[in-house]
């Protein structure tokens, strides 16, 4: 219909030429010469070489920012590992002593008697079966003193029972007795586990979380015509590649994989009910794009790495000895630290060429989230948790195509391990 005039015009214009601007070749020549001066064989690389310096500079910057965040993360880990050891000593001490059973051990346990009640329970739990085992291991010479120790502790056990009328403790006492009767050594662990969580929350202000989270699914779309992830260099290559083919019947598939986020966070319990969490996260976003015509296509593989800082507040709405239920809500700031776009070009299903380009996003990626969490406390200092929730990602002005832009609203599941440190 109305295309006729356009076709006519196109044909006329296409055969039209204009004289090139004066001095264009001279300037080009100068540019080419200076590139050849760099002494590289392949001209195609010569032109890239001008960029190498830039890329290396950027690389340095990026390395610096990554290493700073890595050091920060490492510092957090080391700090809490140290804290962990410090706190754990009280628990580990008797266990270590188990290997060299002697009178001192009994003395120590007697000293422990002066300590506060919960610690004594722990100590007792450890010592009780040990003393039984020492009965077996030690020579008959010591027997008399051992029975004394045994008596002392048994007496003390009774004291506790009378002191603390809480039901769980009484039950534990029974367990202790049962096990000591049966000379079961592995009873130790069981006892430590069951004696935990008594007024646990009151004592632990600081906790650290190691988590992994994942959205419910990726996303995909298909549309007619060509598409690309590329913004810079690769665009030219794709233009070049496609210019040789017609656009008819062409289509593009975009698939964003589920993003994966790893987190190392620190939780501060303000009181029994409220706590705040912050730390550092790493996220990997990967996406695939295929633009396809009749017998050729290209694949874009985009990988983006983000470092982020989350800030969440949580409210514990329910808890019993082993489980804790809570609501959490907060914000998450993420910054892309590096990325790569790899484009593969295929003709008749044969890989023709590959182009790799660094990509990055200057803008920050903000999001808000909310989740309901459930935690199972394995022990005093270890809990497992799961937080199904929702995320909303705000659009930033970057032109990169990511799942955050494609699907700003998403469900996700975060699971993790929570370490608790007693004050």
């Amino acid at each position, binding site marked *: 219909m*109305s295309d006729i*005039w*356009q076709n*006519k*015009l*196109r044909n*006329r*214009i*296409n055969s*039209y*030429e*204009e*004289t*090139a*601007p004066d*001095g*264009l*070749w001279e*300037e*080009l*020549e100068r*540019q*080419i*010469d200076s590139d*050849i001066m760099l002494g590289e*064989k*392949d*001209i*195609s690389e*010569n*032109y*890239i070489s001008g960029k190498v310096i830039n890329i290396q500079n950027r690389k340095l910057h990026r390395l610096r920012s990554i290493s700073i965040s890595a050091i920060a993360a490492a510092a957090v880990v080391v700090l809490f590992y140290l804290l962990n050891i410090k706190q754990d000593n009280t628990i580990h001490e008797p266990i270590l002593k188990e290997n060299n059973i002697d009178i001192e051990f009994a003395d120590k346990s007697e000293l422990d008697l002066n300590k506060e009640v919960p610690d004594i329970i722990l100590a007792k739990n450890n010592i009780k079966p040990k003393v039984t085992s020492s009965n077996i291991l030690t020579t008959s010479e010591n027997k008399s003193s051992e029975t004394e120790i045994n008596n002392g502790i048994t007496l003390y056990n009774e004291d506790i029972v009378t002191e603390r009328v809480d039901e769980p403790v009484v039950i534990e006492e029974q367990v202790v007795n049962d096990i000591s009767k049966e000379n079961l050594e592995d009873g130790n662990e069981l006892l430590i586990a069951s004696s935990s969580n008594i007024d646990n929350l009151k004592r632990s202000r600081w906790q650290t979380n190691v988590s992994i989270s994942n959205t419910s699914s990726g996303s995909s779309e298909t549309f007619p*015509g*060509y598409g690309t992830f590329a913004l810079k260099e690769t*665009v*030219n*290559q794709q*233009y*070049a*590649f*496609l*210019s*040789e083919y017609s*656009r008819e019947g062409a289509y593009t598939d975009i698939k964003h994989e589920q993003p994966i986020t790893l987190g190392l966070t620190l939780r501060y319990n303000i009181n029994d009910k409220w706590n705040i969490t912050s730390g550092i996260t790493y996220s990997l976003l990967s996406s695939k794009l295929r633009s396809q015509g009749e017998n050729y296509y290209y694949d874009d593989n985009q990988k983006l790495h983000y470092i982020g800082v989350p800030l969440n507040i949580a409210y514990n709405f329910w808890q019993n000895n082993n489980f804790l239920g809570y609501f959490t809500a907060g914000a998450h700031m993420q910054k892309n630290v590096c990325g790569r776009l790899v484009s593969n*070009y295929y*003709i008749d299903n044969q890989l*023709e*060429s590959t*182009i790799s380009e660094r990509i990055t996003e200057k803008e920050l990626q903000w999001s808000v989230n909310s989740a309901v969490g459930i935690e199972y406390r394995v022990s005093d200092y270890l809990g497992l948790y799961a937080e199904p929730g929702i995320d909303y990602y705000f659009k930033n002005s970057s032109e990169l195509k990511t799942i955050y832009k494609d699907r700003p609203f998403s469900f996700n599941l975060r699971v993790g391990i929570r370490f608790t440190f007693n004050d």
Partner: protein
Amino acid sequence: MRKDESRERELIQQIVHGDKVAMKMFYDTYSGYLTAVCARYISDKEDIKDVLQESFLKIFRAIHNFKYRGIGSLKAWSARIVVNESLKFIRENDKMQLMSLKDWDIPDDNDNIEPDFEDIPTTAILEMISSLPVGYRTVFNLYVFEEKSHKEIASMLNIAENSSASQFHRAKRLLVKEIEKYRLNKENNERYLAK
């Protein structure tokens, strides 16, 4: 024909290996056409030179990725790079003009009007096109000469799809007026000469 093809293939290979003579040959063969392509998008002479220089460097740099598909393919491929470089230039320098035209989404009353260029010399047509405002001109060129859809143009220029369509219609209308003006001038001139 065969001979031309193998000669061009050889030329490409020589450029890939950094042969300056081959580059000059390529330049002599295609600079006229590529200059015309560039001049469709950019009006300032100095800007055209800058964009062309960048384009040629890009062509030489990327030619190792180019798959030769017979006579005409190298020309078309090179033109694509020039168009792309021109758009990049417009995006960077005339962004305001592209943006300000966003609001032209009022549908035109006489949509089916078609410019009739039959009797107009090519240089005059090009002059008319280059006298169009940047936004109209860019959309018109991409639609007519690069055969892009409005959707593609929209994504290339970061404008709305209906904005691309309306700018195209506006460009068409302006061109129709320009053609009328041109014919009128021509008639006047002829009358004057007859006297």
